[in-house]
């Protein structure tokens, strides 16, 4: 059996559909033309003229398509006119039949699907810009696509649900995001989505089914072992499987969520910095949420509840659990457990009066919202963290005024976006999480000094010939550029630009919070946090050798050969004079 591509399938469908109408046209044309050539024409000089075959074809062409130029090239005889009537009716009907079949063809669902496939594959293949393959366009997928679009990164989207692909069609992304309804687990579809395309940067598996995600990750690893794969997974069995593959990053939405809850409770300064980096609404740098100390009540002990409880207990925060189906043996000794729905009575039993706060983390928004109401009534001072599941309930959660709302599709999308766009940011946050809070506070103070109250703009630059020609040239020539010097403002020498270098990636290793005096090397990747308008300025320094020299020395160097030569002469003479003076004591 031979392999068939989508294109083969399209031509096959066209041929099969058009075979009969084409035969009908052929038959009608042959009969009409031959008949017309055989019909005796007018008698000229005692001889009967006949139409030759070329003119018969010409005549039939304009008659069958109902154009009707008249009797060309000469007037017709009665026999010819009779045959003309026959030609007209048969020809016109054959054409109607053919056109009708063609219209039927373009409405054929198989044909439309095959054409979509071909067009999609072509679009992906012709694309030159870097892109990401996104499998699954649900809540998280669409949030991620929006984030990618904000960073001008292209994505190719696969989803098995035709409704989601229709929804994709009405989004106003800043870059082209081709999408197709297809099962991403099939290698054929991954291929047409560009898994082997040289510009493909990563594949993100975000379908709701863990089995499918695992399948996508495995297929992608086989098809293109060098491609980075980011895979959502919520089950331990799949995770172990996935982590064994290299180049695969597993993202567990529950784990991320639990981590954020833990940071909010125990590391408010880090939570504040992280939220400020990702641009959460209403977050001000250096103003962390004020969380009371004490035991926490956790409502809902499903997969997310497990993670939250594990995370909090590992860091010494006491947890009381309210859940109707909780298994006491799973939880461990000494934990207060209330086997009930998180209503008035259950909250009272769990000791809401002396609890520091409540985490409403069930997978039902209505339950979480009703728990919030009860908590507000019973202990208004308690800190309320709530899990927001469905995007549709946004307005209700805004109105509930919980102290912290965490939407898990949003937190997952943000984490993946960070991994894709600026992996160094996530590395920095993780690095800070492992260290003393004082270090985070120090960074916050530095950022406040550099940025004022402006929102952060995180961007990274790699010191290679394309992105920073002036700097690489200078470094290659044996010069030395310190990080702090590079960040000087060329318009207000020697003031620094409002930017802060957060990390440097050098030869596979990362240097977090680098020193201002540390010298840079070719091929370093530097992560900057700056206000928006600083990026073009800093990029100008990286590109223009004269601006670079200026920020290094504070002296505008001569540009043309003539002035460079004159300056050289001048300096030489000055040096000469200095030496001469020194020689005379």
């Amino acid at each position: 059996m031979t392999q068939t591509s989508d294109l083969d399938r399209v031509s096959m469908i066209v041929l099969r559909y058009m075979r009969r109408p084409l035969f009908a046209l052929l038959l009608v044309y042959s009969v009409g033309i031959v008949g017309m050539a055989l019909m005796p024409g007018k008698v000229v000089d005692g001889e009967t003229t006949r139409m030759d075959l070329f003119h018969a074809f010409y005549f039939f062409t304009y008659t069958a398509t109902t154009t009707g130029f008249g009797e060309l090239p000469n007037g017709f005889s009665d026999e010819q006119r009779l045959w003309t009537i026959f030609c007209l009716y048969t020809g016109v009907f054959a054409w109607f039949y053919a056109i009708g079949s063609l219209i039927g063809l373009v409405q054929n669902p198989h044909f439309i699907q095959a054409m979509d496939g071909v067009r999609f594959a072509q679009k992906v293949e012709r694309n030159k810009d870097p892109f990401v393959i996104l499998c699954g366009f649900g809540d998280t997928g669409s949030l991620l696509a929006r984030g990618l679009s904000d960073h001008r990164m292209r994505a190719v989207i696969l989803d098995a649900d035709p409704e989601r692909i229709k929804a994709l069609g009405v989004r106003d992304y800043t870059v082209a995001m081709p999408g197709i309804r297809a099962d991403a687990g099939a290698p054929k579809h991954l291929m047409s989505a560009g898994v082997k395309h040289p510009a493909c940067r990563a594949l993100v598996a975000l379908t709701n089914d863990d089995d499918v995600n695992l399948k996508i990750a495995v297929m992608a690893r086989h098809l293109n072992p060098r491609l980075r794969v980011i895979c959502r997974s919520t089950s331990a069995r799949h995770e172990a499987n996935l982590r064994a593959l290299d180049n695969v990053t597993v993202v567990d939405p529950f784990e991320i969520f639990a981590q954020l809850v833990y940071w909010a409770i125990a590391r408010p300064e880090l939570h504040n910095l992280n939220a400020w980096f990702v641009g959460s609404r209403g977050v001000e740098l250096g103003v962390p949420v004020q969380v009371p100390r004490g035991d926490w009540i956790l409502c809902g002990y499903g997969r997310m509840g497990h993670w939250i409880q594990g995370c909090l207990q590992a860091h010494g925060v006491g947890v009381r659990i309210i859940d109707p189906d909780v298994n006491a043996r799973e939880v461990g000794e000494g934990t207060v457990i209330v086997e009930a729905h998180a209503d008035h009575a259950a909250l009272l039993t769990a000791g809401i009066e002396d609890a520091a706060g409540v985490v409403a983390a069930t997978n039902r928004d209505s339950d979480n919202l009703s728990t919030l109401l009860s908590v507000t009534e019973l202990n208004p001072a308690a800190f309320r963290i709530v899990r927001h599941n469905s995007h549709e309930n946004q307005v209700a959660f805004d109105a509930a005024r919980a102290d912290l709302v965490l939407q898990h599709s949003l937190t997952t999308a943000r984490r993946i976006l960070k991994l894709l766009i600026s992996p160094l940011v996530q590395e920095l946050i993780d690095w800070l999480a492992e260290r003393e809070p004082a270090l985070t506070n120090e960074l916050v103070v530095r950022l406040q000094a550099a940025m004022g109250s402006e929102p952060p703009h995180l961007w990274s630059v790699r010191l290679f010939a394309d992105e920073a020609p002036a700097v690489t040239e200078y470094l290659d020539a044996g010069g030395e550029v310190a990080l702090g010097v590079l960040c000087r403002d060329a318009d207000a020498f020697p003031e620094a630009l409002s930017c802060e270098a957060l990390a440097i990636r050098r030869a596979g290793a990362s240097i977090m919070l680098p020193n201002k005096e540390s010298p840079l090397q070719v091929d370093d990747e530097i992560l900057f946090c700056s206000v928006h308008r600083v990026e073009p300025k800093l990029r100008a320094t990286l590109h223009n050798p004269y601006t670079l020299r200026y920020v290094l020395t504070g002296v505008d160097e001569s540009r043309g050969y003539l002035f460079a030569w004159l300056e050289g002469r001048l300096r030489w003479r000055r040096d000469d004079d200095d030496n001469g003076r020194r020689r005379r004591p």
Partner: protein
Amino acid sequence: MNFERVVFGFFIVLTLSLNVAFVAGGVETAEHHNVWILTFAIIVNLVAIGLKLGDRSQTGALLLASGLVAGLLLIAARVVWIVAEPAGGGGPGPGDMADIVSIASGALVANIIATAILVGDTLLSRR
């Protein structure tokens, strides 16, 4: 203040001014156009080109390119003048004069572009 910028700006603006001075007047009237002004414009323009040699920045490259265009057109205009001038002197005829002035107007466009780049670059760098 940077001395090199003063000198270069002087020559760029002077080329533009001389070019305007030459082009101004009736297109076909030889009496309205002075061949000395044209010659000076060429010389000043060549000096401006020479000053820009060796600049490695993007704006430097663009200034050099527009300077070369202006120089080429001005020299072409001067050559036409030499060829068209009758043996007894008295300036070229109306047809030839129209050619010379239109070529010089082309050079004027290149000079305007060069001046615009120079001014824009200086305003943007603000130092």
